[in-house]
C-alpha cells in the first residue's frame, strides 16, 4: 500500500451530514471487479440526474473542484453498509483524504486499508474549513505526522486512531504483520479446541 505522509492538494466541499455508503456507491454498481474501477460511480445519485447528466449545483460538478484530492464533509460520514466499494469509489475518483467530524467505524477502517486518510476534526473546525474552501481558499496541506491541516494560514488539528496513523504512514498491510504470528495462531487453535471444542469443531453433517 502507498504510504501517506503529507498531502498538498485541492479540497472539495461536501456539506451534508450522514453521507452514507449507499450514497457514496449505490448498490446497483457493486457487481464489477476492483480492476474495472469505481470512480465514475462515486456519489452517483447525488452527482448525476436520472439521465446521467451532472447536477449543476452539486459541489463536485464545479469545474473549479476538478482534481481535488481532499473531501470535506459533515458528521457521520460513511455510515451504514460495510461495502469497501465506497472507499474504492472515493480513491478511484482521486481522493486521498476525507475530513469530517465523525466517521462510520467500518468505513474508517476500510479507508485505512486502502490508503485513504479519515481525518476527524471538531464540528466547529469542519464548518470553518467548509466555509474557507467554499470561498476559494481551496488548497490544503495535510500532515499525518503532526496530525495537522493547514489552510488559509490557519492550522486545524485532526484525530486519528494511533494504530491507523502508523499503518498509513508506513503503508503497511495487516497480512505482513499477521504472517509473523503464524505459530501463535496455530497454538491458539490447539488450546481453544480444549477450552471450547464447540467453537473449533462443527458437526460435519449439513
Amino acid at each position, binding site marked *: 500500500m502507498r504510504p501517506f505522509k503529507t498531502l498538498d492538494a485541492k479540497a472539495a466541499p461536501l456539506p451534508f451530514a450522514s453521507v452514507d455508503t449507499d450514497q457514496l456507491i449505490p448498490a446497483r454498481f457493486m457487481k464489477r471487479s476492483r480492476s474495472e474501477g469505481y470512480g465514475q460511480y462515486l456519489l452517483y445519485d447525488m452527482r448525476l440526474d*436520472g439521465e446521467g447528466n451532472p447536477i449543476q449545483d452539486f459541489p463536485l460538478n464545479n469545474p473549479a473542484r476538478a482534481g481535488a484530492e481532499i473531501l470535506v464533509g459533515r458528521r457521520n460520514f460513511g455510515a451504514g453498509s460495510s461495502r*469497501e466499494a465506497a472507499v474504492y469509489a472515493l480513491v478511484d475518483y482521486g481522493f486521498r483524504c476525507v475530513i469530517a467530524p465523525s466517521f462510520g467505524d467500518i468505513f474508517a477502517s476500510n479507508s485505512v486499508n486502502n490508503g485513504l486518510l479519515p481525518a476527524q476534526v471538531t*464540528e466547529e473546525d469542519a464548518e470553518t474549513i467548509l466555509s474557507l474552501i467554499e470561498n476559494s481558499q481551496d488548497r490544503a496541506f495535510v500532515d499525518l505526522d503532526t496530525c495537522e491541516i493547514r489552510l488559509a494560514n490557519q492550522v486545524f488539528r485532526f484525530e486519528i486512531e494511533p494504530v491507523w496513523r502508523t499503518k498509513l504512514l508506513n503503508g503497511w498491510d495487516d497480512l505482513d504483520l499477521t504472517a509473523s504470528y503464524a505459530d501463535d*495462531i496455530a497454538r491458539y487453535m490447539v488450546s481453544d479446541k480444549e477450552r471450547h471444542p464447540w467453537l473449533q469443531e462443527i458437526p460435519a453433517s449439513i
Partner: protein
Amino acid sequence: MLREHRPQTLFDRIWQNHVIASQSDGQQLLFIDRHLVHEGSFHGFNKLKDKNARVSRPDLTFGIVDHYAPTRIRDISKIDAAIAGMITQLEENCLANDVRIFGLNDPRQGIVHVVGPEQAITLPGATIVCGDSHTSTHGAFGAIAFGIGASEVAHVLMTQTLWQKKPKSMRVRFDGKLGPGITAKDMALAMIAAIGADGAQGHAIEYTGSAVEGLSMEGRLTLCNLSIESGARCGLIAPDMTTVNFLRHRPLAPKGDLFERAAEAWLSLRGDGDAAFERELVIDGSEIAPVVTWGISPEDALPITSAVPLPDDMTDESRAAHTREAIDYMGLRPGMPLTEIPVDRVFIGSCTNSRIEDLRAAAAVLSGRKSAVPGLVSPGSSLVKQQAEQEGLDRIFVDAGLEWVDSGCSMCVGMNGDLVPPGERCASTTNRNFKGRQGPKSRTHLMSPAMVAAAAVTGHLTDVRDLMGGRS
C-alpha cells in the same frame, strides 16, 4: 492471584478469550470463530486469488446466497445474467475452497443473519464476522459479532484472524415492561433517536434490563441488528435460558453431553456486577410508543403519535439543514402529524424483521383485512417460509393482497431487482431509510412488522394499537 483482577464486562471476557497476540499500540490479533460470506464477498476471494492463497479454515467459513437472491424465480437460468453471475461466483468460490455453501436452492437458504442463528452457526461466546454491517445481529447470543470490509474479509479468509483495537464499552439498560404492540424494533429506534446515528460510534453496546431479558431470541436479534444504526461496532446480550433453549437441537449446535457442557459455559458467560462501562444509557421500556422514521437517517425517528419536526424552530443550524434536506427528500410538510403520511407500498422482510415471530405479528394485524396498497413479504429464510406456510400465515398475506415471495435481502437493498419505484413511499420493516436505499429516489419509513401491517391496512402511517382490539 498475583495480578489484580479488574472487573470485566461480558464483552471484555469474550474478547480476552480470543486474543492471540497484542501489540504495544493497543492493537490485538483476534481469532475468528465464524466467518459468513455472501455474494458481495467476491472482492475478498479475489484478493485471495491474487495472492495464490487458500481459505485457512474452510470448516469455520460458511457461504450463504442472500444479497442477490431472486425472490420470485429460483431458476438461475431465467434471471438477469449479471445477478445470476453474482450467485454463481459465490458458489464457485466456496466450492474451490471447500467452504460449505447454502446455495440458492438449498432448503436452508436465507439471509446470513437469519440462517446463522437458525442453523446454530452462531453460538454464545464466539467471534463472528461477515462482510455485512448487520453482522451485529448475532450478538443476541452473547457473541462478539461485527461487520467488516473486503480487505478484512480477505484477511480472515487467509488467516482466520483480524487485527482490532478494542472498542469502548457502553451499556444500554431497558427497564420495565414493554406495552402492548411494542417490539424490539421500537426499542432500537427509540435508542437511536435518543443518541443519534453516530451516537455509539467506537463502542460495543451491551443490552441489559428487564425489557431485554423479556425478549425472545427473535426480538434480541432485531435489537442487536440495529446496533450498527446507532454507529456501534456491535451489540450483545448475555446468554440465558432463552438462548440455550433456542440452540438446543439446532443442526450445527454441539450434540449430547457436549451441548450440556457448552450450555453450562454459556450460562456462566456474563460480566462482573461491578464492571464499569465508559458510557451508560437507561431507557424506560414502558414509556416506548411505536416508533417510525420520517427522514433519511435512522435517527430521524419519532413516536407515531408525534409530528414531522419544524426545522425553523431549531437552534442547531446543521441539525436544521439536515431536517430540511430530509423533509424535502421525503416530500413531507413540517409539522404534519405522522399518521397523515400516506404510503404507496409495504415491505416485510430483511435481516432486521423477517423471522417467524415478525411474520406472526404482521399477520395478526392483517388477518381478515385487506391491504390498501401493494406489498411484498419475504421471509428471512426458506425454513421460516416453510414454517409460516405450515401456520397458514402465507394465506393471510396473500388474502390481504400482498405478494408472498422467496427469501433473500430483497427490497431492503434492492440488489436482486426488488425495488421501490422512484418517488414512491414504502412502509418497511428494514433497517435503513437512507436516500435511494430501496431504489433510486425511493422513500422509506422504518417501523416494526405490526406497524407495517397497520400502514398496509389504512394506506397511511398508523398507530397499530388502534387496530389491535382483541388481537395480539
